[in-house]
């Protein structure tokens, strides 16, 4: 599960708002899609995405089958201090992936 994390601005000033954009490569199969032979492709989507800052949980996303393939998850936070963002994603089949990114201040 490939996860990308991007900050905008890349290096915010202390106290500034920063947009954290996460993109995960995942088919997000909704379980209702028929393949070329008409068979239903079993549901397989990320159902939990945890975001931590310096080890503390700061947000949880629970995507349903209605979240698009290769999903984008974006939120905003106040950049009070430099630290490490960690993203942990889990899907319905039990696969998981994680990624960290360092938030640096200007």
């Amino acid at each position: 599960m490939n996860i990308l994390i991007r900050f905008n601005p890349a290096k915010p000033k202390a106290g500034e708002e920063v947009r954290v954009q996460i993109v995960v490569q995942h088919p997000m199969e909704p379980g209702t899609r028929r393949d070329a032979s008409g068979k239903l492709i079993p549901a397989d989507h990320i159902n939990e995405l945890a975001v931590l800052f310096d080890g503390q949980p700061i947000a949880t996303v629970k995507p349903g089958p209605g979240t698009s393939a290769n999903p984008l998850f974006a939120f905003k936070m106040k950049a009070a201090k430099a630290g490490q963002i960690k993203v942990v994603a889990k899907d319905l089949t039990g696969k998981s992936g994680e990624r960290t990114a360092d938030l640096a201040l200007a």
Partner: protein
Amino acid sequence: MNRRKFLKASAGTLAASLVVGRVGSALAQGGLEGEDIANLEKGLQAALGKGFKDLVPSKDVKLTAPTIAESGANVPVEIEVGLPADQVKAIYCFCDKNANPLLFSFQLLGGGVLPYYATRVRVAETAPVRAVVETKDGKLLLASQGVRVTVGGCG
């Protein structure tokens, strides 16, 4: 993605012929095109244990989504809440016509996270998308936006 030419002219005609009978009644109730409260209700009850009548439309919730989507597979939505972060517990998003109306939930757990969330969602067919914001004091604030999913074909 070879020769993707969208035949929108025919799409427009099909959509027009479809909605003629329904738009009138929907507008009479002040509803949005494709509104399906009965189906939405299932999703609200499952996710929140509450119904549509418990939701309070609020100007503090800003939901941005396209009014027309070429594909229902990838519709960008952005939700911004005009309330202090410490008053907001979670942001939910629903679509009236999806078999599973709950598109996602976003829970704020502190640490400077602001009441804002953006993603891309699947919309089964022309219907309202709903942002529901749960506040710390137990209110459910609502913003709705109709999304028309273009019908058509590739030639």
